[in-house]
């Protein structure tokens, strides 16, 4: 566009330079907590508590990371995060995909009522259901267990909605052909529908895993034992420990807790952004 109006070029260029400079400055502010966290996690104590501000440590203090993983069972927290997020995701797929397939590609009495309920369910934040679910788990003596962390999330209204929208766009003829070939409906769901819905499935997986890896509310409510703490809950145990006032190890711990999802994001940015943005549909 610069070729057509050479007279305007300088103004465009100054605008572009100014805009880019502001964007870079903004990005620096957004990245500052990450950079500073990483910097402090690698600094020895005497470099942290000083008025001399510098980003790169004079001496790299790897021992902060050793302190972090030995003061509290940080490895255990991360493993708990994997178990809880993995468990939730597996159950969510098991429950939502067949239901979404039936809603999109089959007709049965009460189908529109069920879909209406799904849409209504999208309105309900988890916090609204927390008290009754907590009481129910307490009565079943299931609190403070992996079950308590996984069970409340096994049915995802949002998952049903997302998969249903995807399946509804697939041609009915495709599924009819599979039926003519003698496939059972269960086989159609798992061997045809789910593989076709891979983009929806990865988006949903990213959404689900980020939501539950980062959640603090429910682990705080439903668990009291550090042995089953998820990463966000665990890092607060660390902070509240005696050693938690040591900023170096604390930031090393925070870095280790943040790292898995950040690395996952950097490896699969496009999928990640689509997945997290799809969560917006929950409105």
């Amino acid at each position: 566009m610069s070729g057509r109006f050479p007279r305007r070029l300088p103004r465009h260029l100054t605008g572009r330079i100014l805009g880019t400079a502001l964007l870079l400055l903004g990005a620096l502010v957004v990245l500052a907590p990450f950079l500073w966290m990483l910097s402090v996690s690698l600094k020895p104590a005497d470099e942290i508590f000083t008025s001399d501000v510098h980003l790169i440590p004079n001496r790299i203090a790897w021992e902060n990371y050793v302190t972090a993983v030995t003061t509290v069972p940080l490895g255990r927290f991360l493993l708990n995060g994997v178990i809880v997020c993995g468990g939730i995701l597996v159950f969510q797929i098991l429950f939502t995909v067949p239901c979404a397939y039936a809603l999109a590609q089959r007709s049965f009495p009460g189908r529109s009522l069920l879909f209406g309920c799904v849409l209504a369910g999208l309105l309900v934040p988890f916090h609204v259901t927390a008290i009754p679910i907590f009481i129910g788990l307490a009565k079943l003596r299931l609190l403070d267990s992996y079950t308590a962390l996984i069970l409340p999330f096994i049915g995802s209204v949002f998952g049903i909605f997302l998969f249903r929208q995807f399946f509804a766009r697939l041609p009915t003829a495709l599924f009819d052909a599979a039926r003519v070939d003698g496939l059972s409906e269960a086989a159609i769901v798992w061997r045809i529908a789910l593989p076709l819905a891979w983009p929806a499935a990865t988006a949903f997986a990213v959404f689900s895993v980020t939501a539950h890896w980062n959640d603090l509310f429910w682990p705080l409510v439903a668990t009291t034992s550090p042995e089953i703490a998820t990463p966000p809950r665990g890092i607060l145990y660390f902070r509240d420990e005696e050693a938690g006032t040591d900023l170096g190890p604390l930031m090393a711990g925070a870095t280790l807790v943040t790292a898995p999802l950040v690395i996952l994001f950097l490896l699969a940015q496009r999928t990640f952004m689509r997945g997290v943005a799809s969560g917006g549909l929950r409105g």
Partner: protein
Amino acid sequence: MMAPISRAWREGLTDLYLVGPTVLVLAALVFVPVLIVFVLSFTDYQLGDRSVTFVGFDQYVALFTDPIGRRAITNTLIYVAVMVPSSILLALLVATRLHGMAQWSPGLSRFLRAAYFLPVAATLVAMALAWQMMLHPSIGIVNMTLVRLGLPAPAWFSDRGLVIYTLALIGIWQTIGYNMVLFLAGLAVIPRHLYDAAEVDGVSSAWSRFWTVTWPMLGPTTLFVAVITATAGFRVFETVAALTGGGPAFASDTLVYALYREGFVYFKVGYASAITVVFFVFVALLTFIQYGLLQKRVHYR
């Protein structure tokens, strides 16, 4: 005559095993709990009580007359009122710039996009601790810089008048990237020819192009972004729980944190249920406003 009946039965059974388990799960984990929380909000039930007494609207009256309860509501509203417009405005600025930049420097545009999005992917509780360290009153890098510049050094988390704005600041930081992605998606579908038409009509500066084409075309996206951000704002919990515990003196107490404290620390289930219902009403209202506005005002193609 037998065959079609048994076939209908088979089909019915298939529907049942595809849909049935999920219906039960949703009923048990979403719909019944919502009903229960409404009922509990009209009782004075405390965890461990053997019987339940209905007290009508007493819990709601208590919530709206108790200074601490009102504090939680006004704090949440302040948080939303500060966080939502700032986050949307900044995300819009970043997205329009990055959208243009994608044409002359796709690499830099992608890098900046990832940078702004990073807080969305990061674990908020861990990053809250990083913010706590940066905003430490004496040894935090922010205040050290301010002092060096001869500016006052605020007590970000212990100043009662300031703490909710500090949390809103972290909220803005955390949501810009998310909203930027939604705006970029909205910008990507604005047809190129609208800009050409505007150019023909004499709209030449970037500023007027934005107001004649981009802004009206982004109407639905902006509304969507506003509702999502506001919903996230009403849900603020992680930063409060990790950094302030609602303090000092309830100056950063919010609805979800109050619901957590009253329900799961003090086990005042009836009162916490009333807080839950008020929270739910705020969130549901947002969605209804969104539908209402979509019907009426916003340009939609």
